[in-house]
């Protein structure tokens, strides 16, 4: 039986309450850390644990914390990214629902480590019940003296606020999130400066995903080495994999970092339905480049997936079987990114909308021969040329679907247009 950290709480009744959490060993890490550990020791411990940023980028969490200036006269902030907006991702919702105080304890440790006294949890607007749960449990924590002034009787103060988003994908991008938190339009910022130097309200800020923060108490309790050994090299601990799509048992699976992708799909998620064959797998949320069935013998961790040209992302694994129309699948994905493009910088704003309209024509059976190449060209022209990663998020699937399933896209060109050349096309327009 593999080790479980967060998901063992999923099956415990009322695991979101303080009492149940404490009965299962909760709040011991923060209590002892406040008495016996210096902030720097916490940062060192997290660094040693190889805990990665589990929201998608995979930046080592301890290193992110160490960038916070020590002598800044400005207040510092911990911001928890609970926007969970990447399609195919639904792990943070489970954490908030079932491991609420584990998240709070992680926040306390992070805040203590960087000397912050204010934390904002920026939660996806659609997570209404989760926002209510957070608020209700924050209230309970204040009543116990776990939050507010002198938490747990120490000299450390911490206030936690829940801020609900208004439904924009882009507000999951950390600087877009900060803009939105400040009450502005969620437009990602130019970097540098990074949030560690100028984040919320232009003050040093750590922005971490819910899952990242939620693993911190266990690291402090059981030690960095124990945690690091659970995972693979430089990818410490466990990971909540969200498996969706055409598998028998979609759901959240907490497995060691680096579990083979094929094992996650075929063993833990129960494999495909009877009589179906695997067609494609998205390993890390809809923005990750798609994999063909012969490419899934890979360890699901940040470095291994990057090595084969895709990404771990948010570990939202979407499985597609042979009934899937790849053109329609790409249309759905691209429509999403076009709808969610913030409109700030040119390539993403115009490119995603253009690609969406081309794909719509393809789905409707009105494609032209040059459309396929144009999709790849649009993707190439977006990627790397935008302020934030949403441009890349839209470009990566666009290119990978077309390249790996080109025949399906070419099949959308109706017979009467098969031999059209672009020049003839423009002559027709003049006519």
């Amino acid at each position, binding site marked *: 039986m593999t080790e479980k950290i967060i998901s063992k709480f999923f099956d415990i009744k009322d695991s979101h309450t303080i009492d149940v959490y404490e009965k299962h060993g909760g709040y011991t890490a923060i209590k002892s850390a406040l008495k016996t550990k210096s902030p720097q020791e916490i940062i060192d411990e997290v660094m040693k644990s190889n805990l990665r940023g589990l929201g998608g980028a995979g930046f080592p969490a301890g290193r992110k914390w160490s960038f916070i200036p020590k002598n800044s006269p400005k207040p510092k902030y911990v911001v928890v990214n609970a926007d969970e907006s990447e399609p195919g991702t639904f792990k943070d919702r489970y954490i908030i629902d079932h491991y609420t105080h584990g998240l709070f304890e992680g926040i306390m440790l992070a805040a203590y480590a960087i000397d912050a006294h204010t934390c904002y949890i920026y939660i996806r607007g659609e997570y209404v019940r989760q926002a209510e749960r957070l608020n209700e449990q924050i209230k309970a924590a204040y009543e116990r003296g776990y939050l507010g002034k002198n938490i747990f009787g120490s000299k450390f103060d911490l206030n936690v606020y829940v801020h609900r988003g208004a439904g924009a994908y882009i507000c999951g991008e950390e600087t877009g999130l900060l803009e939105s938190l400040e009450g502005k*339009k969620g437009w990602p910022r130019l970097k540098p400066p990074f949030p560690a130097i100028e984040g919320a309200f232009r003050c040093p800020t750590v922005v971490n995903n819910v899952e990242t923060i939620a693993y911190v108490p266990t690291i402090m309790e059981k030690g960095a080495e124990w945690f690091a050994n659970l995972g693979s090299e430089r990818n410490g601990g466990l990971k909540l994999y969200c498996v969706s799509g055409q598998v028998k048992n979609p759901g959240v699976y907490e497995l060691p970092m680096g579990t083979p992708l094929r094992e996650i799909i075929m063993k833990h998620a129960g494999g495909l339905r009877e009589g179906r064959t695997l067609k494609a797998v998205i390993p890390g949320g809809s923005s990750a480049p798609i994999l063909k069935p012969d490419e899934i013998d890979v360890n699901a961790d940040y470095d291994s997936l990057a090595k084969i040209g895709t990404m771990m992302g948010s570990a939202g694994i979407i499985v597609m079987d042979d009934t899937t129309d790849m053109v329609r699948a790409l249309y759905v994905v691209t429509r999403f990114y076009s709808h969610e493009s913030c*409109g700030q910088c040119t390539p993403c704003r115009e490119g995603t909308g253009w690609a969406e309209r081309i794909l719509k024509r393809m789905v409707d059976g009105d494609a032209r021969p040059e459309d396929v190449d144009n999709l790849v060209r649009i993707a190439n022209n977006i990627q790397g040329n935008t302020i934030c990663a949403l441009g890349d998020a839209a470009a990566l699937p666009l290119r990978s679907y077309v390249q790996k399933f080109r025949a399906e896209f070419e099949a959308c060109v109706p017979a009467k247009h098969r031999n059209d050349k672009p020049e003839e096309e423009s002559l027709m327009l003049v006519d």
Partner: protein
Amino acid sequence: MIKLTIDGVEIEVEQGATVIQAADLAGIDIPRYCYHPGLPIVGVCRICLVEIERMPKLQVACYTAVSDGMVVHTNSPQVLEARQAVMEFLLVNHPLDCPVCDQAGECWLQNFYMQHALHDSQMIENKVKKSKARPIGPNVMLDSERCILCTRCVRFCDEISQTNELGIFNRGDHAELLPYPGRELDNNYSGNAIDICPVGALTDRDFRFRTRVWYLAETPSVCPGCSMGCNINVHHNDNRTYKADGARISRVKPRYNADVNQWWMCDAGRYGFTHVDDETRILSPLRKSNDAFSNILWDQAIDDIVAKMQGIIDKHGTEAIGVILSPQMTNEDLFAAKQLFVEQLGLKNIDYEVAPSQPGNKDDFLIKADKNPNSRGAQDLHIDPQSTNGMSVAEMLKAAANGKLKALFVFCHDLGNGFSADDVKGAFSKLDFSVFQGSNHNNTSKLADYILPSVTFVEQDGTFTNYSGRIQKINQAVEPLGDSKPNWTILKMFAKRFGKSMPYFETGDVFNALSASVPAFRSFDFNNSQNQNEQITTEVA
């Protein structure tokens, strides 16, 4: 100082400069839409992407800070490809309605397409529809379809005018520039939003469809609207006046001057040139008889006026004549007037200042309460009753009403702005004789016995001294209207008829005489002036 290389050229710039600033200094052209040196940097248009060695991706030149040893390529194949890609993206939803767009000819989409793209469009989809020809303020028309969302105007309203009227609404390719609900783009500087709009999204409601920009000539000048002296370019339509109902001046644009107005000017100045061509212009010397004016020839007017003035001097002495000069006049005009009236004719009653009964509006940016361009010049030339031991304007009017003053020579002023209309009327009714010299009719001109037409600021060369003592040159953009002449030319005619000498043949001669006699003007070279960063004669008080 930081040393970097751009396209093989070694450049030294100050720490903190950006790549685009360094390139600008070196004369290396990097296209830009959202970047404006006077506004905060947002890096959204992505047209200024450049390749920087040892950086994995292309970087925006507008935001990337220079560092020592940096090697930048602005013309590598990768850069050109990205630039063309951005151009292609910008035109995806652009309506391409250049034939009916007022920006055509000065549109950065047109310019950069020609310079950097020249691609064949692959875009055959329907374009996103947005609102067109939507007035968003008294001066500005918005076409959302043409907007490239560079946010220059938004940043202008946030940071420069600080009035926060504009925002970007909606997301993705449906994003649209609009005023906030219930607001309109109505502030004292709204016209600048049109200037900085690189495309045809914001156009000037006053200028729209009046003339195509390629028919316009441009003459550098200075705004005469207040004592700030904002540097401007006068855009005039010399050859196709029928395109604009005979208006020769099509529009006025601010001209960059780091020390005065940077890139900006106020709307009052921008739209304040209508007097140049309107129906109040005085087109010929006029003589009043039986309460009606009739045209006369210049020689006749000069003869008449000189004879009458001589008669009054002979009978009542020089104290019986008053001269009211105007801070609307150039330094050269004021100098010639002082030379004629004080030095050559020995008059004592000479003043220029008429304090308005309603003080002008002002702010702490470009708008000054003193609505005259050259009050400081008049001060520097010592045109005041103290230095001649004569009467001020108020004293002159009082003396006229008492019958002590027999003749009055008024330049430009509508005296009703500073005194009650009845007092002015009463004073004029007692005078033996009065002359008004100016470019446009006003309530005072109608009281005078003779009216002499002078030119407006776009019809002459000259200098104004702004509130801080900065001498700045105006240049003739169009020919004088009708029989009007520069003030100093008229004064020269008087001098000649009085038997005196004024050896000036062009405005520069007047300035040279002026700078030879008034030390404050010596640092300014009239003929060599690039109209940029003129010398400050004296420090701001």
